[in-house]
């Protein structure tokens, strides 16, 4: 997480330096290539950050105050909730990856789409 963050800030600094030294930036091929290469690092940093906080503090749920096993709910059948939610988020995750890859790889054919509804987010 820290490594990704530092690398990304270095790239940002480099962008600033190049804009100052050799504008315009859009013609600087090696820099553009580097930009493409580092672009997944934002996601990696985000996920790694969650891993550190969620896995790193085990076996505590509240660090040095309460253990995870003492915090488990008394409700029966938690497995069902857990499985349904996991399945839901796996499906949503697959759809997100698929939509993102479509946006990145393919140029969509606008004519086939609904012109309306003007649903923009």
């Amino acid at each position: 997480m820290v490594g990704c963050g530092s690398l990304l800030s270095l790239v940002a600094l480099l962008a600033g330096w190049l804009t100052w030294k050799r504008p315009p930036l859009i013609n600087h091929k090696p820099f553009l290539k580097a930009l493409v290469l580092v672009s997944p690092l934002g996601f990696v940093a985000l996920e790694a950050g969650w891993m550190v906080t969620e896995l790193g503090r085990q076996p505590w749920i509240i660090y040095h105050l309460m253990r995870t096993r003492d915090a488990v709910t008394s409700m029966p059948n938690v497995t069902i909730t857990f499985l349904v939610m996991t399945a839901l988020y796996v499906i949503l995750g697959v759809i997100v990856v698929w939509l993102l890859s479509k946006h990145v790889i393919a140029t969509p054919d606008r004519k086939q789409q609904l012109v309306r509804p003007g649903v923009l987010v």
Partner: protein
Amino acid sequence: MSFSRVLVLAALVIYSLLGGADYGAGFWDLICSGPRQQDQRDLIARAIQPVWETNHIWLILVVVLMFSGFPAAFSEISLGLAVPIFLILLGIVLRGSSYVFRAYFTGSAHTQLYWGKVFSISSSITPLFLGIVIGAISSDAVLVKGGISDNGFLRTWFQPFPLIVGVLSLSLFAYLSACYLTIETDDAALQNDFRNRALFSGFVSLMTAFATYVVAGNAAQGIREGLSRAPYVWLIEVGGAIGALVAFQALWTRHYQRARIAAAAQVALIIFGWGVAQYPYLVRPELTIYSSAAPTNIVSDLVIAVAVGALVLIPSLVLLLLVFKTHRESISAGTGTSI
């Protein structure tokens, strides 16, 4: 303690007035019909687009105030009403993601319509279960002993009273939404579509409210007594009735601005009246705001935190609404070009 209870109630009222209307809009998206079906969907999408995510902060506020301020009640609700709460969560997740997927999907129109269906169905189910939770905590069925629900997973809520409160909340949200939508467009035909829907759903919600009161006689004595207890509860009820009359008269004569304000006041007073009738209980029959509250120092810190948060939140929300809801012409001009 009473003050943080008022905060919970206020957040619930604001969530219903803003977020509730978004759910109602999803419900109208589901049953769009007639020659202007597509125009109706466009209007709905355009109206909720800038606000539907923001409006959830009020629900988050309710949840946070409950678990920090009234942890015993929060725990009892999440255990006893695990099923409806789980379905609310499912509805909120599916609704938000399908709305975004519909907007960003680059394939066929058919699949976009499919996402629209998921969006509108989950928008309609969520308020139903929100109402069911409200009905269940008013009706003496939620009892938790030693971390286990006395009435299991279903008997806490799958009963006439909670179910009818669920229908009431869906019809109220649909009514609010139809009232709001009349002023989101300049097209007289579209305005008329939603005016008729507002009148229809308003009528349905009045009938359901009456049915709720009747069913409460058997199932929820406590809340019914609460409703007919003190003179100020009557004042709130009369206020709600006046709101309803003004809203209906304004809709009938096509004064949409006035209808919107009166309908919002009506719904706010109904929820406020429920809150007062429920007092001092949070979850009937056992937990009151006194028996379920966190230690006093935590509650007072919580109130300070909310006050500080409001300093940031309220101006930002006002700005958001000013930007997106007062310059409608420029927005609708922009929708064709951007994505």
